[in-house]
């Protein structure tokens, strides 16, 4: 899973001719902002009840296709539930998981990484050993297994994401910390009389922040995907609650009869993951003093 996003370390070295325009930041930020609004106000702006079934209105096509009905803008699924309303409600779970799981994973993983990289010694050896073990697990299977064990529900999804993904932060932050630790400005802080912990916080951390912000934003996208995958294999939350992954699973089955059930959640997922992954990079390009 997500092998694409696993390789953070090299993103820094991206070619120097990348577009410096802020447009990327605006596009990604814009989509995420709309999504947050949609999720927040889902109960008020949804045209239909996302759970209401109507077998007489099953598999209605989206509004521009002949045979559609007003009020069901993006069509209905095989049980007659409105696709748009379900997507808006699905966005709530996706975003809550993204923000909470992303942030917690980032905090836990980065903390372990900076301690391991800066203090080294036995703490580093233990943490590195755990990373080695974690790297030997197939992450999707690991996540599915965890959910099966600790039960479905939003908290479980968040816990599962933290457990499978802390190593992503730890690995990158540890390596980056180690390369910063040998710089002379660390020696200089020591010459000035700064303590070890204080040096870590006030000298090293600011130099890690751009990397951490990019990773955090990536992780939020990954959390959205993990949630979708878990819903896809019917292991996220109660089965009739609207989730993007659940809609995709259903759309996959009825793909030849009602393509729109798959296409719209898929587009939403695509844009969200892409936006999250580019948003952090955009922030870094815009605000990192060394690049600016």
């Amino acid at each position, binding site marked *: *899973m*997500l*092998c*694409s*996003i*696993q*390789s953070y370390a*090299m*993103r820094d*070295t*991206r*070619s120097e*001719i*990348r*577009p410096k325009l802020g447009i990327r930041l605006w596009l990604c930020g814009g989509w995420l902002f709309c999504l947050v609004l949609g999720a927040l106000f889902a109960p008020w702006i949804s045209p239909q009840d996302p759970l209401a079934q109507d077998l007489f209105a099953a598999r209605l096509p989206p509004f521009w296709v002949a045979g559609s009905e007003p009020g069901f803008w993006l069509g209905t699924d095989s049980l007659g539930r409105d696709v748009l309303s379900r997507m808006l409600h699905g966005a709530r779970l996706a975003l809550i998981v993204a923000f909470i799981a992303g942030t917690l994973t980032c905090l836990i993983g980065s903390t372990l990484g900076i301690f391991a990289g800066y203090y080294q010694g036995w703490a580093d050896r233990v943490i590195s*050993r*755990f990373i*080695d*073990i974690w*790297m*030997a*697990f*197939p*992450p*999707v*299977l*690991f996540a*599915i*297994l*965890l959910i*099966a*064990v*600790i*039960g479905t529900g939003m908290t479980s999804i968040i816990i599962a994401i933290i457990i499978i993904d802390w190593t992503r932060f730890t690995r990158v932050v540890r390596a980056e910390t180690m390369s910063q630790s040998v710089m002379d400005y660390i020696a200089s802080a020591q010459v000035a009389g700064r303590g070890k912990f204080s040096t870590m916080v006030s000298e090293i951390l600011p130099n890690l922040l751009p990397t951490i912000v990019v990773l955090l934003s990536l992780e939020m*996208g*990954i959390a959205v*995907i993990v949630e*979708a*995958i878990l819903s*896809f*294999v*019917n*292991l996220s939350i109660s089965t009739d609650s609207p989730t993007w992954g659940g809609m*995709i699973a259903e759309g*996959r089955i009825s*793909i*030849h009869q009602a*393509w729109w059930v*798959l*296409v719209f959640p*898929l587009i939403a*997922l*695509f844009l969200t*993951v*892409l936006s999250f*992954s*580019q948003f952090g990079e955009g922030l870094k390009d815009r605000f990192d003093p060394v690049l600016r």
Partner: protein
Amino acid sequence: MLSRILFTRLLSTAVTLMGVAVIVFVIIRVVPGNPIAMMLPPGATDADIERLKAFYGFDKSILEQFIVWLANVLQGDFGNSISLRQPVSSLVLGRLPATLELSIFALLMAVLIGGGLALIGTRSRGTATEAAIDVTNGMALSIPDFLWGLFFILMFGVLLPIFHISGRISPSLNLDFSTNFYLVESLLRLRFDIFMDLIGHMFMPALALAIPLAAIIAQLLKQSLKESMNLDYVTLARTKGYSEYQVIIKEALPNAVLPTLTLVGVQFTFLIGGTVIIERLFSYEGLGNMAIDAVINRDLPLIQGIVILFAALFTVINLVVDMMYVVLNPKLRHA
């Protein structure tokens, strides 16, 4: 030196695998939904439950269970699957070839696409071609294999149905193969009809797995090729009458391949991890698909077997890559 590194790495691999075994065992034994309860026929008595528990060894302490299980595993006995009622080892080994063929096919695709893009990008550095490659790479990197799979199902399953999007082989084909390495065996037996059918099924899931890795290879290899092109010894070669193409291939590439190789090793394990969901998506009868069924059915022995097999595969791949790195790097070889 080489043997010392090999020994250290083997030792560390063993420790890692042991860690995996412990963690899998612990996770599974704290499962709250009692697996026995799920297997019972209606109207079973308490005595039946106790008998089943004793049969599967669930009545002993966790530590005891672990030692018994580990001793069996070391003899190649992973127990019997609860849901399929067959030995785990034969079930797992029966599915492994399908997953291996898919993963290696995807890896080859990724190396060809990514390597090709990197070479083109390096030759045309500083031009619009390079910029286009960079932008495409960035997009391809951001989208995980799961979404690529769904995208291909829509594009090539519904809009332009030119590839199969379900299964490993057409059911109408009469198979009398002696191994489960269908792709390899069909080639050896010169059954090109079967070979093409297998490729037709494999192409979409493999491409979904390959695209993110191809983008990573293209990006990293291009980056290190460009850095290598600025190295003094490459510059020196350029003054000696070689053509640009010769300089890239013969001087810059061997140097640039080394960092890429390490990365491809790790990324290959991620790719194999990705087969779990991709196989599910394309109903491909491999290990991953079986693993998800096993989790849904709470088939503990089978889950353990599959996870341990994946972990063993990953650590072996990492070990091989490490060794290749040492062999290809004269500084380590002759230190």
